[in-house]
């Protein structure tokens, strides 16, 4: 039986918009359970990510002639894998130092600033690192581990030979 107030076309297309948009508490609870399960998978992914090897052993990588880099300059290279960007720095006093380029806070790239006392900075959240130790001295990186240092060997050429720690 059709409602006499309903237009004729609704007999052929009995679609009730109000019912279509109606979500029961039961349905909403089930949806929340799916969200909860999704978050478990997210944590599972993070756990597997933490099992990835952190150091793949001693690997020598040629970073080029030492004289090619001017004091107060830097260049990016990848060590130990192509997924690990690192920053080779030639300090104002001529020393070489290298760190992994990802900020330990949220993985933004860090850059070398030779001006005003030399520093490493992360521009995402204004983090500043100590150039000697790689430790965060300003901003969110203070709460995290220091930057990972790449061990260098220097002769006429500069070589990356391992990771500290």
């Amino acid at each position, binding site marked *: 039986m059709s409602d006499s107030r309903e237009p004729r076309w609704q007999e052929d297309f009995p679609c009730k918009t*109000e*019912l279509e948009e*109606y979500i*029961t*508490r*039961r349905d*909403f*609870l*089930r949806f*929340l*359970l799916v*969200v*909860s*399960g999704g*978050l*478990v998978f*997210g*944590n*599972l992914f*993070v*756990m597997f*990510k*933490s099992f990835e090897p*952190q150091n793949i052993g001693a690997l020598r990588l040629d970073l080029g002639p030492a004289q090619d880099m001017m004091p107060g300059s830097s260049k990016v290279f990848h060590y130990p894998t192509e997924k690990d960007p690192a920053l080779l720095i030639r300090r104002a006093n001529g020393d070489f130092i290298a760190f992994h380029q990802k900020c*330990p*806070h*949220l*993985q933004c790239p860090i850059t070398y600033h030779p001006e005003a006392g030399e520093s490493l900075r992360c521009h995402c959240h204004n983090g500043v690192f100590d150039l000697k130790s790689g430790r965060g001295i300003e901003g969110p990186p203070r*709460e*995290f*581990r220091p930057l*990972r240092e790449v061990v260098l060997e220097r002769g006429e050429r500069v070589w990356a030979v391992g990771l500290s720690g």
Partner: protein
Amino acid sequence: MISDKRLRPGLKGSLTARIWIVASVCAFQYWLLTASMEAVHAGNLKIAIPAFVTCLLCFVFNLGLILTGEKKLP
């Protein structure tokens, strides 16, 4: 407006309470995921397993709460 007249008022209240509890646990799980991800990025790898186990326990708690609730429904 559609009202669910099939449910007794007490049952409706308990369902609403379940929704709040499960939603709060989901919010906690979300926080746990972001915190563990940040910790792993920061090199604190030991946190990942306890965070996963806690998240799994939260899911089991939610599942239990929903299943026991479903049994009471008509």
